[in-house]
């Protein structure tokens, strides 16, 4: 069964950018600081035409349930990700002496 999406009068049917998914708008990565004293943490991504609207969209998409006190937005294209996990990270897996797990912690210290 086919279904026609209702069209608002005055709106164009065709998408001038050709793609329905991104409107040709850049992708932004969103970082939210949950409370003062904590670091901004990656929360997700969104599309927006510019940085100001990306901040506003991030506010509405990622903080509307009071998840944060500050947001950063970064163009996704500005992020350089690590590659080749095998050579970059696996070597650390057999170096347990780098983990501080061989110390006896006095009881009175409690949780560290």
């Amino acid at each position, binding site marked *: 069964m086919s279904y026609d999406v209702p069209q608002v009068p005055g709106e164009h049917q065709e998408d001038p950018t050709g793609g329905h998914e991104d409107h040709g*708008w850049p992708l932004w990565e969103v970082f939210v600081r949950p409370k003062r004293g904590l670091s901004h943490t990656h929360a997700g991504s*969104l599309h927006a*035409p510019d940085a*100001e*609207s990306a901040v506003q969209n991030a506010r509405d998409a990622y903080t509307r349930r009071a998840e944060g006190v500050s947001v950063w937005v970064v163009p996704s294209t500005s992020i350089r990700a690590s590659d080749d996990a095998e050579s970059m990270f696996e070597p650390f897996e057999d170096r347990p002496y780098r983990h501080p797990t061989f110390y006896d912690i006095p009881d009175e210290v409690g949780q560290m």
Partner: protein
Amino acid sequence: MTTTTTATTVEYLLRLADDNVVMGQRLSEYISRAPDLEEDLAVANIALDHVGVAQHLYTYAGELEGGGRTEDDLAFGRTEREFTNALLVEQPHHGFGDLIARQFLFDAYQLELWDALSRPDDARLAGIAAKAVKEARYHLRHSSSWVIRLGDGTDDSHRRIQDGIDAMWRFTGELFETDEVDLAAGVDPATLRQAWDGTVDAVLAEATLHRPEDPYQATGGRHGVHTEHLGHLLAEMQWMQRTYPGLEW
């Protein structure tokens, strides 16, 4: 409070509440039709802000009135002629440009109004206004940034937002009309005009849009005389409570 002043306060609260519930309903109509998912969320958020303020105001008005009417009775049980919202908020939108134009012209007014109302001596109303002024500041930031982005964008977006401003303009004068109900509440709308003009002129200039010169201004909303659009909006908003009175989720 004397009976007369209580009735006047209730009338004033209903004006504020009606403005917000109607605006919230109009914005809700746009959900799933925004240019993108992110804007859908933004419009829905702003709609909820307006409905939330309306709920507080209706509750307060119902308590003052003392007749046992709840916020639901006041929102869903009053007729078109009993609604006293400004004509601007009931105007339909035929696209995103209209929606943003209507929102922007109203946000610039509400920001000044809530700011003024957060000072007078009605502590309960001042409390509602103090919360609403923060929301209105964000609403204005959202709508004015879109006015600028669209106005200073492509030829097509410029034309659409200018058309929206032109279409909504004739309903802005009513926002600043003064009568005894406003004066009794302590804020003369006419005193908000200068700040509104300043905001609107600055944003329109940055957006490379022109301020409409059409001198005709429609009026009547504060006395229940509406454009043909409000009845349809209320029919959709109220039908469930009218079909199943007292229905709860």
